Every structure is written in structure tokens, then in C-alpha cells.
């Protein structure tokens, strides 16, 4: 049986189940306890687990993440919530210079089992400092894992696995997905990190994406189906380790690839995925690998400009038309 719940609720269930299962798991972050989480992901956890395990902090990101990593150094399994990924930049020294490297630098003596959860993404007119997608920054770092679910079911299964994983995991949620609903199994389940999933099977073009862009790809695929273009939609789900095999396998079948990311195109995840496709499926490609991504600009506040900056389903559709040779037209409406 399955229940239909919101992404936010799925995350809440994952946290609750893991905290019930393992007394070493605790939650720490700004507004996670009494306020219930800035996006209400941790709502009710203080009431169930008490202030020893659900801990509100001062606004001190470097110290919050350091607390998580330090506690993990001696065996606890913290879940750190950062209010948004934008604030993770204040903690980047702890994440990159410490969390990602302590196991390696200690010759394997330390295990840093910490999950750092943070919402990211744009779409709520929050302006340039609150709308970034920084997954490629963290995916760049050996020693970190980067998990980025799009659906409630994936959010729950991947968060539970991330909490049980013995490494630092950047778990990136999306602000615009918290209210989105989907079916989640009633029984307990885990989803493995590092495994992509084909969310829609198709034969003409591979739409490769993750997080909120997955929903856009599925929408575009419906529209393309009406035009006789059968799109396959691949949800990468984990950026590091990257499941290149599933991505390349899809492209070998469809011979065309479009990578869709909400992040900036330049030096973004799409560049890495494109490289993997070229390395693994060069002889299979019938068209250049394309990318649909955000405008190369800080995110503007004004709604019209913000929507212009973000990738749209229309852009994905026109990119698909172009690579399948159905119609040539300008792909990027900003050019």
C-alpha cells in the first residue's frame, strides 16, 4: 500500500523513523526545534524526541556544521539542517576542509557520518542571495556525497540511507518541492545512494535531470509525446557518486541527450554529465549533447526576470525538437 504525502512530510517521516531506530541520530540547526524548521520539515520532532536530540542553535553556520562533524568524529550520527544552501557558504571551511577530509587525512581512523540537509533553488522571488543552486560546488569535492531527490518517495528513502551512510552527505532539498505530493510506500524502505532512476521510459531522446527540474522534464515529456517524440526521463538523484552507467545506458538507447539543471550552465553538473556521456556513448550520439540551464546571472528579484532566468518546460521541448530534427528553432529564449 502507498500513502500520498508531501515531500516535506516524507522527509519528516524519514527523520522520525531513523531517530526512533538509532539513539545516536540527532538533529541540530537553526529553528529546527521550537519553530519546527524554517520549512517545517522537523515539525513535531522536538515533541517526540525532546530538546536533547532536537537542538536549536544560534545563527552560527560554521559552528553548527563543526558541531555536527565534531560529534561524528567520536561516533554520533548528526543530521545538520542549514536553513538554506546559501548559508552553507559560511560553513564551507568545515564542510570542505574538515568534514570531507578528516577520514582521509587520519589514514582511515575517523568516520564522519554526518548528513547536512539544506534546501536550495529559486522560484519564490527571494533574490540573488537566497535562490542559488550550489550542488556542483559540493559534488566537486572527493570525500563528500551529494544527494538531491525530486519526489517524496525518493526524498524519504534517500534521506534514510543518507543517515545510515558512514560519510558526510550533502542532502539537497528544493524549496519549491516541499509541498509537492507523491506516493510513498507505507512499509519501511531504503533507496541506495549513487543509483539513478529512469522515471519515464522513452526511445527518442534522454532528458537527464534531478531535483525540481525532473518535474519539468516529465511535463516536457508529456508535451513531446503529443508531438510524437518519445522522451526518456532520467532522474540522477545522487550527484556524487554519479551513476554514469544508467545515464550512458539511456543515451545509448535514445542517441540524444539533453541535461536539464536549475543551476548555472557554466561549470555546472551538466558539464560533468555531458562529459560522462561523451566518454561513454560517443559513437552512439546522433546530435550534440545539449544543456538547458539557468541564465548566467545572479537571480533577479522581479518575478518576470526570475522566470526568464529559470529553465522552462518550453525550453526543454524546443531542445528536444532540435536534437530529434523535428524542428529547428531558437532553444534559448534569452538569446
Amino acid at each position, binding site marked *: 500500500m502507498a500513502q500520498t504525502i508531501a515531500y516535506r512530510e516524507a522527509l519528516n517521516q524519514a527523520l522520525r523513523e531513523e531517530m526512533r531506530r538509532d539513539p545516536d541520530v*540527532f538533529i541540530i540547526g537553526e529553528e529546527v526545534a521550537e519553530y519546527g524548521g524554517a520549512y517545517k520539515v522537523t515539525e513535531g520532532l522536538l515533541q517526540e524526541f525532546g530538546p*536533547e536530540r532536537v537542538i536549536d*542553535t*544560534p545563527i*552560527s553556520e*560554521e*559552528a553548527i*556544521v*563543526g*558541531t*555536527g*562533524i*565534531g*560529534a*561524528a*568524529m*567520536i*561516533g*554520533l550520527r*548528526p543530521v545538520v539542517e542549514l536553513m538554506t544552501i546559501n548559508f552553507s557558504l559560511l560553513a564551507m*571551511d*568545515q564542510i570542505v*576542509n*574538515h568534514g570531507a577530509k*578528516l*577520514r*582521509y*587525512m*587520519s*589514514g*582511515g*581512523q*575517523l*568516520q*564522519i*557520518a554526518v548528513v547536512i540537509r539544506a534546501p536550495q533553488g529559486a522560484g519564490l522571488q527571494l533574490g540573488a542571495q537566497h535562490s542559488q543552486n550550489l550542488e556542483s560546488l559540493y559534488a566537486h569535492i*572527493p*570525500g563528500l*556525497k551529494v544527494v538531491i531527490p525530486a519526489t517524496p518517495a525518493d526524498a524519504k528513502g534517500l534521506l534514510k540511507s543518507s543517515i545510515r551512510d*558512514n*560519510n558526510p552527505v550533502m542532502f539537497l532539498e528544493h524549496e519549491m518541492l516541499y509541498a509537492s505530493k507523491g506516493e510513498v510506500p507505507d512499509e519501511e524502505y531504503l533507496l541506495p545512494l549513487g543509483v539513478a532512476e529512469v522515471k519515464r521510459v522513452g526511445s527518442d531522446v534522454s532528458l537527464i535531470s534531478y531535483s525540481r527540474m525532473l518535474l519539468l522534464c516529465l511535463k516536457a515529456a508529456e508535451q513531446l509525446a503529443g508531438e510524437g517524440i518519445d522522451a526518456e526521463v532520467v532522474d540522477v538523484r545522487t550527484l556524487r557518486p554519479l551513476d554514469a552507467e544508467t545515464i550512458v545506458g539511456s543515451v545509448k538507447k535514445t542517441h540524444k541527450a539533453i541535461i536539464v539543471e536549475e543551476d548555472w550552465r557554466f561549470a555546472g553538473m551538466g558539464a560533468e554529465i555531458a562529459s560522462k556521456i561523451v566518454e561513454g556513448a560517443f559513437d552512439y550520439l546522433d546530435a550534440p549533447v545539449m544543456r538547458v540551464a539557468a541564465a548566467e546571472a545572479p537571480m533577479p528579484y522581479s518575478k518576470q526576470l526570475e522566470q526568464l532566468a529559470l529553465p522552462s518546460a518550453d525550453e526543454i521541448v524546443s531542445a528536444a525538437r532540435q536534437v530529434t530534427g523535428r524542428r529547428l528553432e531558437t532553444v534559448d529564449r534569452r538569446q
Partner: protein
Amino acid sequence: MAVREERLIHTKEELLEMYRRMLLIRAFEEKAAEMYTKGKIGGFLHLYSGQEAVAVGFISVLREDDYVVGAYREHGQCIAKGAEPKYVMAELYGKATGVSKGKGGSMHMFDVKRGFLGGHGIVGGGMPLAIGVGFAIKYRKTDQVCVCFFGDGAVNEGAFHEALNMVALWNLPVIYVLENNMYAMGTAVYRASSIPDLIRRASCYDIEREQVDGMDVLAVREAAERAVRKAREDKEPRFIEAITYRFRGHSMADPAAYRTKEEVEEWRKRDPIPRMEQYLKDNRMVTDDDIKAMRTEVDAEIQEAVDFAESSPFPPPDALYEAIYA
């Protein structure tokens, strides 16, 4: 000497062990310098010569299951916490037998089973980690403590202030030990801090503070006893400023031209090792022959460490990709 009576509490064995450990660290560091100039050791090498009394005095009151978080001038702290010099030397050589299997180096010594949690190369970077260690101790309701050493440069980092606020706010058993050796690399304290009296930089967090002569191992030990008791029994953080001095430059690459010869000479007169030696002699705990025998023993141990490092294998190529993930 107002604290003389208190000093007599320490057993002779404890006093001799502190002396021996300072000798060991000094001999280790001077040998490391020699091997660095011979090209046996790479990277940065920040030596602890002159500051031995701080690590030895402080760590002498800790239990094996207590934790220490250091910065990048940490060889002495690692040895004081119980690591055998040969494994620390092998680490400097980048050998597979090093404490961190040759993957950490001078700035990243770890001996986790003895509670030595690094070895951190970013100024102030260990301070947030120590909050987490203290947090975990409180979470598990044990009576351990965490001691975090850092230098005078770190007081100007945001991490310093975030960390002090949080350990005080949450009453964590963390003792922050500022080793004020007067210079952050080549920058004298007064050139970097609006308040040259650095203990005042910690004054607004409602943490009990104490300043101690970091060139006097007994004074450090006594301050440590007070602080550790407080942290262990009352679950409270403490802040200690140890006034100390490094006899060498910031690293082996630094001729320390920013300090006068006279200044260095003045501080060398306060060298903690002869000072302790005098104390032991004054109290008739050792003879000159005993001292000589100890020095010979320490020199042999350091030579053995060098031989061990020299004869140990380098890490195999496979080690490059080992221990990135658990």
C-alpha cells in the same frame, strides 16, 4: 611562591614524567628540523620547541579517554597524548607506518584511539570541531572532557567567537587553550588584535578564564587541574591563555626576521625544560646523573624513531584512493 604547596601534591613520578616528555618533544622537534633540512620531510613543518610546557602540563592531567583537538603545531600535543614518537616521525616522512598512514603529514597527526583528534591546518578550524566533541560527551552523559589548543591568530577568526558562545550557551565540557606565542606567523599580536591582552577577547561569553605562564609546566598543570575538574565535574567550559614562545620561526621556511635576537634570547632564558630541571634538582628529586641518563634515553628513543621512519615503506599506490569514503 604562593602555589608551592599545591605543587607538592604532584608525585615525583608525575613530575619526572612531565620533564621526560618535554625532553622527548624537544628532541623530536629538533631532530625533525634536522631531517627537514636534509630533505627527508616535505611540506610545511611548524615546530613546537619552546612551547612544550603547554601541551605537557595540560595533557598530563587528562585521562586516556579524554579528547584533544589541536591545530597545525601539534606534534608535541600528539606525543603528549601518548603517541609514540616513531609513528609521528614516520608520518613526517610520509611513510605508511605513520600515525595517519602518511596521508596527513606534519599538520594532520591523528591518534584517535588515544583521543588525539588532529591535526587541523586551518587557523581556528579545530574550534568548531571541539564543540561537537563536547556536545557528544554531553549527549552520551560520560565524564570525559575535550581540550582544544589553538594559537593567537585564531582569536581573530569568526570560528573563535562562534565556538566560545556555543560551548558557554550549552555548558559543554570543552577547555579552549590559547597558546599565545606572540606571533601569528609574522604578525605580532598587537598588530592584529584591537585588544593586545588576548584573554579579554574571550571575556564576553561568561566562561571562566585563566591566564598562565606557558613556560612553566607546573603552572600549566595546576591551571589544567582546575579547568579539567571544572569541566569534568561541573560540565562547564573553561578558557585558558598560556603565554608562551616558539624558539623557531613560524615554519622551517621562516627565518623570523620580525623578531629581535634580544627578544628570542630573553625568552630562551625562560625555556621550560631547564626551568623544570632546576625545580627537580632543588627538590632533590634528581641528580645530574639522572638527568644525563634521561637525556641519553630520550635521544635513543628519537634515534630509534628516525631509524623506524627511514626503514618504513612509503604508502603503496593503492593508498591514494583508500579512506576517502567509509
